[in-house]
Every structure is written in structure tokens, then in C-alpha cells.
């Protein structure tokens, strides 16, 4: 059974974010068509799809960078933190100065306490006085995420967070992100890396040409994807993903 093109939001007391009927148009091009989903506290949701599917557009609507032409976003429990694909921090400022600057711009109550908390969470307290530009790509990405967490958001949006990182840096990054989810932060991330989505996400939202094609667990996706001859239902996820898209004309 195919998943509905627009995921139905579920009404749940634990819900951290709920989006319904999100539509976004750029000129003549429809970037998103009535996409909807809901995520609960501490949930890890991966948004996957081919290039131009609308992943970044969806995250930018959820982050408030852009406004949807139609649809609503409901945040019952607080703020959304946004972490852009490339580290958005100042390389000539130190780790602590970056965190302090954005904490002040976020107008958090206790700036120094927030900075200390993030330094501990990112495990970078001993490098607090190092300029961000001297850190590895993985550590820069951790600071990037920490900046997104300064306002202590209920939902964290990560736009392709592991792009450009080596396997070791990716592993440390996901360890950090899993820790956040474990502490109750809802994490929604977009990725091209299907294996990464399979490995870390609890649920996936598949987009293609701005349309929501699937919203559910990895197991449910395997079940929904057509099986190749001689392959078990729970076979290679990437192949299943390609077949799924092909079946839907993408």
C-alpha cells in the first residue's frame, strides 16, 4: 500500500510540531504541494528525496525563513532551532564568542549559562577560546548545531548536517544528535544520504517534486517499496528507495 501523498497529522499530546497543507510556489514552479506531517517530542524524522524535491524549502518554511503560500505550522511546545547546511558561524570569532553572540541575538535570559551549557553539550569546553576557523569540519558543525540549540528549542531542524564530513566526524555528529533526541528534542533533518536516514531516523518523510510521497517508519517504507526479483522485503534500503521513486514516476 502506498503512503498518502500528503501525510495526515496525528493528534497527539506529545506532538512537538504539526504542519498541514504546506504549499510554496517560486514563480511558476511549485516547490511544495500540500505537504503535511507531525513529529513528537524526542523523535528523529528524516526528510529524504532526490535533488529539487523540496527538502530545503520545507525546512525553511518550518524555520520561518520563508512563509508558505498556503498551509499552517503548529508549534504547541515552543521554539524551532534551525541549523543551515553549511556551518553558519564566524570563523574569526572563538567558539565561546560565537555562542555568546547568537545567545545575545536570541535574547536568552542567561547568556553565559547558555554558552556554558552548549560548550558542555558539544564537548568543546576545552576549545572555547579557539577561533572557530581552526576547528575541524565536524567540530564546526557541532558548534553550528549548538547555536541552533541556544534558545532551547523544542524542535531542531538540520539541513543536510553531515555534508562534507568524513566518516569519523559524521559518527561523532550523530552521536551528538542522538543525545539531543534522547533528551527530548525533536530533530528533523534533511539528507541525501539514504543510509544515514535508515540508520538514525525513526521515521522518514519522502518528498519528490514538492510532493509528500511517504511518511512512516523504515519498516513501513520497506513494506511499501516494490521488491526486486530475488530480494527480500527488508533488503537494500537505497535500492528500495530508487524503486519506490521509479514506481511513483520520479
Amino acid at each position: 500500500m502506498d503512503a498518502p501523498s500528503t501525510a495526515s497529522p496525528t493528534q497527539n499530546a506529545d506532538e512537538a510540531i504539526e504542519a498541514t497543507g504546506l504549499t510554496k510556489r517560486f514563480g511558476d514552479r511549485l516547490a511544495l504541494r500540500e505537504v503535511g506531517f507531525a513529529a513528537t517530542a524526542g523523535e528523529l524524522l528524516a526528510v529524504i528525496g532526490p535533488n529539487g524535491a523540496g527538502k530545503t524549502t520545507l525546512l525553511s518554511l518550518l524555520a520561518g525563513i520563508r512563509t508558505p503560500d498556503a498551509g499552517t505550522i503548529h508549534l504547541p511546545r515552543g521554539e524551532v532551532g534551525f541549523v543551515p547546511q553549511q556551518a553558519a558561524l564566524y570563523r574569526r570569532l572563538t567558539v565561546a564568542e560565537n555562542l555568546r553572540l547568537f545567545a545575545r541575538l536570541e535574547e536568552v535570559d542567561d547568556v553565559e549559562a547558555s554558552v556554558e551549557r552548549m560548550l558542555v553539550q558539544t564537548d568543546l569546553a576545552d576549545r572555547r577560546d579557539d577561533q572557530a576557523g581552526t576547528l575541524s569540519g565536524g567540530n564546526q558543525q557541532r558548534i553550528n548545531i549548538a547555536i541552533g540549540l541556544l534558545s532551547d528549542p523544542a524542535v531542531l531542524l538540520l539541513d543536510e548536517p553531515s555534508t562534507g564530513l568524513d566518516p569519523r566526524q559524521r559518527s561523532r555528529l550523530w552521536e551528538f544528535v542522538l543525545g539531543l533526541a534522547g533528551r527530548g528534542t525533536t530533530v528533523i533533518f534533511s539528507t541525501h544520504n539514504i543510509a544515514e536516514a535508515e540508520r538514525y531516523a525513526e521515521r522518514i518523510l519522502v518528498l519528490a517534486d514538492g510532493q509528500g510521497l511517504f511518511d512512516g517508519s523504515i519498516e513501513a517504507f520497506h513494506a511499501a517499496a516494490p521488491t526486486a526479483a530475488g530480494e527480500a522485503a527488508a533488503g537494500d534500503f537505497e535500492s528500495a528507495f530508487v524503486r519506490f521513486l521509479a514506481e511513483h514516476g520520479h
Partner: protein
Amino acid sequence: MRWLLLKDLQIMRRSPLVTGLLVAYPIVIAVLIGFALSRGPEPPRVAFLNEVPPDTPLEVGGESLDLAGAKSELCDRIECVPVSSEEEARQKVESGDVLGALILPADLVDKLQSLAGLTPESPTVKVLVNEEDPVKAGLVDDRINSLLAEANLRISQEVSNVSTSYLQILLNGGDFSFLGQGIQVLGLKRSEQILRGIRGQLPADSPDLDELDSVIRFSHLAAENLGAAGDLLSSVSQPIKIDKEVVSGDTPSLDTFAIAVAATITLMFVTVLLVAGSLALEREENAFARLTRGLVSKSALLGEKVLLGVVVAVVVTLLMLAGLGLFVDLDWGRFALWIPAIILQAALTFGLGLIIAPLVVFFRDLERAVKLILRLLFYASPIIYGLTDLKKLHLEFWGAFNPLTGIIGMYRSAFFPQDLNWFAVAVSAGMTALIVVAGVLVFRRTIRTVLKEI
């Protein structure tokens, strides 16, 4: 905005290239201009009009004076620019082509020669000076006065020699030529001797003795006093008078011109460098989307960059002027109009930025075109020349509609007071307001598409 400003200043401080440039720039400019201004003065350009008919001999008391040699000596000390009429000389002084003019009238030689005659007249030369530049005008005055003092000394010596020879004849007797006829003069001393001889021959009770004694006493006193008159005559030292006329003009001195250009270009250079550089930094650091996601409004972000550029540019310019102050005297009180000028310039830059920045995203080549257009506009703006210069081309009214005209005029007024044109300032303020409103409208209409593009 305060935190962003502090952040940008901190990043600047840690960027060796930018910091080095901002420190080195005012030093290099101040030193270069300072040395250029404090080097030895070049001969001033002076228009020279000689109305004395050519080949007119100049003789004073039988001594021939070399008029051509005097002109050659004059032109060794100043750069003589020959002119054919007083009107031409005046035009050159007014236009600033020359710093002054020296006019020798047609009757100069006759009057000079009359000094050694019995009916002396006072010869006069005319000097036109443009005192808009007091330093250079002073230099011209000094050169001309010095040359005339030398000429006066030589002439007065000749006049004195002639007068002394006449006195010697009166004193000691001799031959004297007047209207082509030779006259023999007895002389006061000889007269006294003759009278004393006659007195010795008169009887002691002669009634003429008293009168004769009176004449002898007069001859004696006259001879003694005329003997001292030679020294008195030699002290007469200024036979040639100077008729000086100050011609108003609008030509600035090299000093003020150089400082004005340096200050204006520094302000513009540093402002543009920092606004463009700090905006590029936000883009390079991928921070633009993060900042404008509710943390800072887009207008506030642009405003902060303009403020950063203006603040640093003013500091750098003041440093440069302080450096120049070591070489030339600066009247700091005349810089008050720079404050409204800076505010207007910041608003104008802000408005233009709001219009151009989104368009550059859609038309990448526009970035190069803007550089080219800015270069052309630089020459079309009264930066290295004044609005008053456009008056000569009858473009003063239209020139005021360049929004930079009034602003630059306020900057230039610190150096050239005549460049302050309140009409141009009002037009600049009005056009700046229009450009800011247009900029806000363009920016609001395009920003969504711009964000998608970048």
C-alpha cells in the same frame, strides 16, 4: 544591532589584511600628501605684461639701465607667462591659471627717467594677486616686492649719484649743461673765498662789512649743509611704487585641494570597502539566513553594515587628517558640516544599496557594470572639482541634481567655503529621501526571490 557592530569590529581587529589596510592607508596617504605639500616651493606662475614700447632706452642721470636684463632676471625667479593685455592678465589670475600678474605701464620708462630730472614723477607698476590662496599669494607678493626693491635700490643709487653731482657743482663749482647750453657754476665754497678776499680789502670802518659778513656766513653754512645732503639723498630708496589689486577667484591651493581629495576619497573608499566587505562576510560565513530568521531584520542588518562603514571611515579619515596636520595647518572648526554630510551620505548609500543589492542577485553582470558606472559617476560628481567650476559651463543648476553634489559640497566647504551651496544641499537631501523610499520598496518586493536565489 549593537552586538553585530561589536562583532564586526572584533572580526576586523582579527583580520590582519583589513586591519593593516585600514591602519596603513591613512598613514601612507598622510605621509605622501604631507611630503608633497611640504617640499620646496616651485616658482610661482605669474602673468607678465610689458606695455613699455620695445627698444625704449632707459637712462637715469646719463647711466644706461638694462631693461631686458631686468625682465630676464625677473623670469628666472618666477615662471613668467607672457600676456598681451591687462584683461588677459586679469582673466588668467581669476581662473587660477596664474597666481598673479605684473604689469609694466607704457609710461614707466619716462617716469623713471624723470626721477633724475628737475620735474620727477613717481613711476608705478601694477600687480594683480589672487588671494584665494593666501600662501601662494604671499609668495607672489614676496617675489615681486623683492625684485622691485632691488630695482628701486639700483635706480635710487643712480638718482642719488646724479643729485650728488649737482650738489657738488653747487658746492665746489663746475660746468653744468641745461637745455643744451653749458653753464659755469661758481660754487658756494669758491664764493665764500672770493667774499673773504674782498672783505680783507675793505677798510675796517666800512659800512658794507656787516652785510658782507652775513653773506659769508650764509655761504659757509650752505656749503656745510649741502655737503651732508649727499648722504640724505642716498637714503631715498623707493622711487617705483606698486599699485596692488586683489582679484577674487575660486581656485584652491594645492594644499587644500590635495587634502580635500584625500579626505573625500578615503571616506568613500573605506565606507564602500567595509559595507561591501562585511556584507560579503555574512554571505561567506553562511550567516545571512541564520541572522535574518527573526534574529535581526534585513533592514537592520544593512543599516548596521552602513553604520560600521561610516564609523570606521570617519575614524580613518580623521586619523589621516591628524597626520596631515603635522605637515599643514588645519582649521578643525570648519569640519562641522561633515556630520550632516556623513548622515546624508550614509542614507544615500543605504538607499542605493537597497536598490542595487537585490538586482545584483538577478543580474550577476550588474556587479561589474556598477563598478564601471560608479567610476563614471565619480568623474561626474564634483569631488575633484567644485560646483562653482560647473558655473563656467552653465551646468551649475543641473549639477545640483546629482545627489552627491550637495553632500560633497559640505565636505569640500571645510576647505573651500565658496563650495557650500544650500540649494544643492536641499536637492541632495530630497533626492536621498526619494532613493531611500525607492530602495525600501524595491528591497521589500524582491527580498523573497533574492533569498531563494542565494
